[in-house]
């Protein structure tokens, strides 16, 4: 029997697939996507709040997914649904608490140094988008809070012309923004933020002169 000779294909530089693979491969230095070591200066409790924010976001999304299974009114009529709503509420509160502490920590570390401006920018935009996501959640509760927050909130968004497109009195629109559009944006920003952190590494101490 004659063995079929093995043909090794050389990467084609014109191939879109090859280009995309190289692009993705070059996002983070080799071994830094999930490193098993950290710079020795990473030694403070403040670093924990980044991962706590990510963990809280995971619980927020998980509890939100369970709520979507039951539908928008399920939690009003089911004790299980009400409990899942409570999980969703408190994970959101924890998420914001961790994120604000993380943000303040990064501020006092001047964590934008060393070409990390975009890491800071994506973090701030993720924070602001999260506020919008939580706001649409309050508008989607279909209870007294939704009525009052909608009645109050409409004047703000209408005053700057946004209310013509983003109608806080329309729970159908707000619910879709809450469960689809805004979570997609927050998720994408989180991924970009984490990739940037892994790409540039954790910011060294202020006035550190070099490797040691």
């Amino acid at each position, binding site marked *: 029997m004659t063995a079929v000779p093995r043909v090794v294909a050389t990467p084609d530089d014109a191939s879109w697939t090859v280009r995309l693979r190289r692009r993705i491969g070059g996002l983070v230095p080799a071994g830094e996507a999930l490193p098993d070591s950290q710079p020795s200066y990473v030694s403070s409790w403040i670093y924990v709040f980044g991962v*706590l924010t990510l963990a809280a976001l995971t619980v927020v999304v998980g*509890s939100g997914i369970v709520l979507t299974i039951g539908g928008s009114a399920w939690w009003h009529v089911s004790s299980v649904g*009400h409990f899942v709503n409570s999980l969703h*509420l408190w994970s959101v509160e924890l998420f914001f608490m961790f994120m604000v502490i993380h943000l303040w920590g990064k501020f006092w570390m001047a964590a934008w140094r060393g070409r990390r401006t975009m890491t800071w920018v994506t973090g701030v*935009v993720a924070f602001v988008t999260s506020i919008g996501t939580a706001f649409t959640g309050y508008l989607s509760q279909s209870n007294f809070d939704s009525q009052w*927050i909608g009645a109050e909130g409409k004047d703000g968004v209408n005053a700057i*012309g946004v209310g013509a497109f983003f109608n806080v009195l329309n729970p159908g629109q707000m619910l879709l923004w809450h469960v689809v559009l805004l979570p997609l944006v927050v998720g994408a920003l989180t991924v970009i933020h984490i990739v940037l952190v892994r790409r*540039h590494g954790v910011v060294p101490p*202020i006035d550190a*002169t070099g490797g040691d």
Partner: protein
Amino acid sequence: MTTTQRPRTPDSHAFSKRPYDLVKEFVIALGVVSLLTVGLAVIFSSPDEPAITMSGWAKADPADVVATATGELAGTTTSATYGPPYNHNADGQSVLGIPLQKLGGVRIPVDSAALVLQPLADQVGSPAVTGALARWRAAASSQRTAWATAYADALAKAPGGDPAQVPAGDYGPVPNLTAAFLDVARSGYLEGSLTSSGNFYGGDQTRSLLLLSDGAYLEDRAVAQQLGGDQWGMMNETGNYPGQPWMWLYTFWYQVKPFSTSENADAQVWALMMLLTLALMLLPLIPGLRDIPRWIPLHRLIWRDYYRTHPRL
């Protein structure tokens, strides 16, 4: 002349390293946050005050329903005089002369009088209502306004706003229309009529919520629960729950002058918050602001281990 140049931030990958298990850190964090969440949910639950229904409003404060309906017909309610995005009856708010509200356009048209007339027109088999509606529609616009305004004034003077205690006057069909409207509200039919408006599937409560907001009942209920605009209202929620504390700065501006007394407060506060958000976002590029962490060296606490072994020269 010599200049002192700030040292460039070195590459983090050039520093000595120590073993660290990122995945284990995340799994532990997820476990801790999950336990915390379950604990808080079990202990504190979550608020769910039922939405106000139109029949509930009509039973709790019928005089407010009648006064609101009269205001819609007279064109004096908040929604009737709102401007964009609901109607052209005002220009709305502006900032530095820029009519931001008007620029959005009237994309969600709402006729406030129709909030009353359409549910009544949907009623079948009531000759009294049909007659009152026909008389209203046959009258000139100025006559309609005169009737409704006169009735609104009379209601305001009547004890408790009680329609039964309004003296006789030239109110046209307005008392009949508003009384019939109160009956529709009591029956529980009003939400469906305003929400669906020809569509089997509802989902858009704009008209119902505008009508409810035009009355005093919604705000009275909110103020009683410390949710008023001057009570840091929108960031709070019913009961003793934290609400949205992350909106404290936005809500804060409404509590202080000049915003608390400005007719353009909403647009001004939004413009200010957008400016502040932009400043926070671009903080790394703003001299002075980006130097605060050097001037107030809290970072020496964060990196105290590093600075202990690497004292400054």
